[in-house]
């Protein structure tokens, strides 16, 4: 009985990243209600990059793809764009995982910043040019800035809970 409970707990813990991902895309928890003019961040990017890099088995690509579709629908952006960006981010993380022998927190962060800069620019160009959707340039920059900064915080929290910062 005890063993069964332990198994169940383990299985539930394994699903935590997926639950967090779906909660973040369906709920967009970005503290907008605080009314801070220049504050927003993309929690999904942080979550996807971290878990694709550190625990690739925790988040399946199919779940990430579906989460992207949900995110587009909730945000009202063209359907498929978030999935594409999320999967590109997974690609960057997977590439980094393959080429890196010794992990470094700082190098991971640099790679993350580079990746979200490119991905946000790409999404900005696609949405603006092909879908005639107006997006505030400043908001986009603010979002990139805080996402980059908060990656440090959230990855430390995830590492603390998982105790896996050095395991790949």
């Amino acid at each position, binding site marked *: 009985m005890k063993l069964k409970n332990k198994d169940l707990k383990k299985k539930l813990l394994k699903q935590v990243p997926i639950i967090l991902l779906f909660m973040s895309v369906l709920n967009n928890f970005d503290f907008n209600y605080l009314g801070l003019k220049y504050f927003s961040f993309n929690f999904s990017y942080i979550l996807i990059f971290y878990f694709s890099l550190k625990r690739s088995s925790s988040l399946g*690509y199919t779940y990430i793809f579906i989460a992207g579709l949900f995110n587009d629908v909730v945000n009202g952006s063209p359907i*498929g764009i978030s999935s594409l960006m999320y999967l590109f981010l997974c690609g960057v993380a997977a590439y980094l995982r393959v080429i890196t022998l010794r992990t470094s927190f700082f190098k991971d962060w640099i790679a993350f910043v580079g990746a979200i800069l490119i991905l946000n620019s790409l999404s900005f160009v696609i949405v603006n040019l092909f879908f005639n959707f107006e997006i505030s340039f400043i908001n986009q920059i603010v979002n990139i800035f805080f996402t980059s900064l908060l990656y440090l915080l959230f990855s430390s929290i995830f590492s603390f809970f998982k105790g896996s910062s050095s395991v790949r």
Partner: protein
Amino acid sequence: METSRDDFVIAIRSAFLKKQNQQRFSLLGLIVFSLTILILGGLNFKPINYLKLVVKEIAYRSTFFVSVPEKLIKESYQITKKHINLYNINVRNELELEDLKSKDLLNNFLVLENQRLKLIVEDYFVESDGIYAKILSDKNSPFLKSIIINKGSKHGVNIGAVVKDKEYLIGKIIEVNYTTSRVLLLSDINSKIPVLIEPQGLLSILSGSGDKEGVIQYSKAENITEDTSVVYTSGVGGLYKAGIPVGKIKKINTGSLNNKVEFFSDFSQLKFVEVLFFEIKSAK
């Protein structure tokens, strides 16, 4: 040089083509699939539109439940904030109430007089009917200021229908599903409505700024000299019923005026809204 290029190709191949444990699809396969959906969605391909409808119905309903904990936090935060400012709010409200009571009497008289005069000049008047809807999700993201309501085509909601919070305009319907709809708020950068600035009687366009306030466009700013100027819908183009209050010209700290508009309704506090249907009827 050759070896490093080989390593790069191997790493890319491993990252994008190799299926991980318990993965059904490779990363590249899903990227291609997303790209296909994106392109076909842009071309209004029918099966993609059906897929969108299904995902929307699931996502909007799920959003309502998933956002319950955050809503609780948000409400507690706002209640605490209100309690802190309670005394000041009360004093201000009492003064405003006195002022409004006197204005209301005058208003009733003007409405009746207006209707009577319209009948005399055989003008038309607008008759409106509305339904109340609950907010399912208010994702005021920095990129899109919109809300999801629990009324859709099943309840007769159409694209372009006007949405009000009490007597104030908050936006219009831009997307209709079977049981849900999306309302584009006036604060969204893509929102543009024809307005009338009173008492100057200036016709203009009010655009969202992506922030809390709106911006008056295509009007000479120096014309708006009074900080008491109120912005109403003008009804030009027949998109909106004329005379719905939108906001007031914002006075900035330096004492000078700019072309920003402070909306009457607080879009972060919406719980129920009214979707308005209107038709123009002859006064006869």
